[in-house]
């Protein structure tokens, strides 16, 4: 016990912000309930910082809105920078859990970071609300401490496949995405639904994560009704520019996953993005009370249009707040709190109504958007909504789970 106290003192003495405040006023803090400690795993330095910085903006915006108080408990917020690699994610998870004794973690950003710490958070029974998309964490290797209020990789791509086949009446497609798991899982999701609705995926192209010039790949896109891209980070900017520069945009229309046409990315894009249709579990354009507030606060705090990275963390904050209100501010039993998080169901959120399935993954709206230029600015206008989309789409859960996880070669191309 004495060991714990010294550790907490050390924290309070050294960490900035909220920690400092509790140190200054020790007596009321002890008299009332101890603060709820919320840890963020994100990437603030290095090449992946783009999404990571937005994640922090999202959760901080929610905390400010709530005046750093959830269900009457003060929230102490601790942000950790993983540097965007698995070993860093592990060390920072250790810092949050072993040193700062956080009650709950939000984040991390990348699938490989999440996979590096899933066993660890289970051993230490710490609830985690993930942004990262690795399918199997809420499918074949369910972890009772993890809930995912964002989406699995394929969750938006299933509806996109449906939309492409049924509404846009496309018959054939070529997919292109980075050569890594997030890309495989996205494209497999599109392919499966698109083909079940009568379409055919002719080719799947996989440029490496670092590809300075996409032209050699774009040159292979020909003779199909549409091209689906699932790029992430800064790659969509590079890809779509080259796609337009080669005169392809008028020839073969582009569809996109959520990371490729995220609202936060729009200010980095130009005419090459106009007319691109994308599927996203969040849209800044969505007309709900809480979304208007969120978008306005993000404008005010950071002067940015929010996208999925910040919305995902904002919504994760909402989930924690809702679970704490339900439990009367108690989170001491982490197991019970994780179960409480699974039961969260919110009607008015920036992404619309949502709840979690028994695997801890979100069931919510997916928006199909068309990118337009309005008053000189790019906007993703919602053209169709798919309500209550689960990670299994319309497929039978058991059958879905008995099949292999989506990968580079599964489902295979129809020959």
């Amino acid at each position: 016990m004495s060991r714990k106290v010294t550790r907490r003192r050390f924290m309070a003495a050294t960490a900035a912000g909220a920690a400092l405040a509790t140190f200054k006023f020790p007596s009321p803090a002890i008299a009332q309930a101890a603060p709820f400690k919320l840890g963020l795993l994100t990437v603030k330095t290095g090449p992946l910082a783009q999404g990571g910085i937005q994640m922090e903006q999202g959760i901080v915006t929610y905390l400010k809105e709530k005046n750093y108080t959830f269900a009457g408990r003060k929230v102490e917020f601790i942000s950790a920078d993983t540097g965007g690699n698995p070993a860093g994610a592990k060390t920072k998870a250790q810092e949050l859990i072993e040193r700062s004794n956080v009650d709950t973690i939000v984040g991390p950003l990348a699938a490989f970071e999440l996979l590096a710490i899933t066993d660890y958070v289970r051993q230490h029974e710490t609830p985690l609300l993930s942004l990262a998309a690795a399918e199997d964490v809420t499918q074949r290797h369910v972890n009772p401490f993890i809930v995912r209020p964002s989406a699995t990789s394929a969750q938006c791509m299933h509806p996109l496949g449906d939309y492409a086949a049924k509404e846009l009446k496309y018959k054939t497609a070529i997919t292109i995405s980075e050569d890594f798991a997030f890309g495989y899982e996205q494209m497999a999701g599109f392919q499966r639904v698109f083909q079940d609705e009568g379409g055919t995926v002719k080719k799947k192209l996989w440029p490496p994560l670092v590809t300075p010039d996409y032209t050699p790949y774009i040159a292979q896109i020909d003779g199909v009704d549409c091209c689906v891209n699932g790029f992430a980070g800064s790659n969509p900017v590079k890809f779509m520019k080259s796609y337009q520069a080669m005169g392809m945009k008028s020839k073969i229309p582009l569809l996109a996953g959520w990371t490729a046409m995220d609202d936060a990315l729009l200010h980095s894009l130009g005419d090459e993005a106009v007319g691109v249709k994308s599927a996203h579990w969040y849209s800044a354009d969505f007309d709900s009370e809480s979304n208007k507030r969120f978008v306005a606060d993000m404008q005010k705090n950071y002067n940015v249009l929010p996208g999925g990275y910040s919305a995902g963390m904002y919504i994760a904050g909402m989930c924690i707040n809702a679970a704490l209100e339900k439990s009367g501010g108690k989170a001491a039993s982490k197991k019970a709190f994780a179960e409480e998080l699974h039961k969260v169901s919110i009607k008015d959120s920036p992404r619309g109504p949502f709840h979690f399935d028994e695997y801890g993954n979100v069931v919510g709206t997916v928006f199909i958007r068309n990118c337009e230029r309005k008053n000189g600015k790019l906007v993703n206008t919602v053209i169709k909504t798919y309500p209550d989309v689960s990670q299994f789409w319309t497929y039978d859960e058991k059958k879905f789970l008995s099949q292999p996880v989506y990968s580079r070669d599964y489902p295979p191309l129809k020959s």
Partner: protein
Amino acid sequence: MNARVIALAAAAVVLVTLPFWISGVYYLNVASQILFYAVFAIGLNILAGYGGLVSLGHAALFGIAAYATGYLLQAGFGHPAAILVALVVAMASTALYAVLSLRASGIGYIMITLALGEIVWGLAYRWISVTNGDNGISVHSRPQPFGISLTSADAFYYTTLIVFVLSLAVVAVFVNSPLGAALKGVRDQPRRMNALGYHVWAIRFWASMLSGLLTAVSGILFVYYNQFISPQTLSLTASAEVLLMVISGGASTLLGPVVGATLVIIVKNVVSAYLTRWNFLLGAIFVAIVILMPEGLVPGSARLWRLAWRRTRGWRATKAAETKQ
């Protein structure tokens, strides 16, 4: 000499008693990380320091050992068998690495090792049936030598400490052995050594093998510590990072790489909790080291210490002489 013995004894006492006075598991885990990265850096120092062969692909060897361990454990091997086979795989890879890279020296060697590192990194991404791509391989348990489970932070720390001390001892013996002397000779005077009848290539080859062995051992500690391995661990950045540990601490000194590893791990893992711009700080520290002590922290501090010592002694001597007059 006496001061040195006292310092070493003090360091030994601190390291052995660390779990008793450090507060919290977290810092003990950071200490374990410092120790196994130090083993990695000590291993690279054999080539980059004593051998003058700056390898920019060592993360590949580190990663091969880690991947082999993870893969074999996943395939159902027991811990001792997995570790043993992983070491064999890593040594075979090191032999190939040495045969290819030792066709050149100097900048050519740097570039070959860089290319090899990038190729192995690409393999880790693309050879999905073995490596599971960027989803990586999880290791679900740690070994239990003599019935002691390494699951606890304390037990893992002591295991790492033992490996660290052994590695340091091996390199200390190696450096003072005829082979070690020959390696340094080959670094400084390759032509003359050749003329004297030394087999330059063979000396460098066996140095590479020893370096590869220590690298592989640290790679295995890494995979057991993190219980996860994915391609990022093999990236060029990772190779550069360990090289920076060696150079900043002081290449071709026994303790330089240890100091360098401590510096890098602490900035990366501890300072980064308080300072968002820790990358800038790390870069600035490297630049400062080059300006103040281009030979590295350990030899640089020793030089400054001697300088200061001589000055004060010189000053005392003059003062003594003055009072005599």
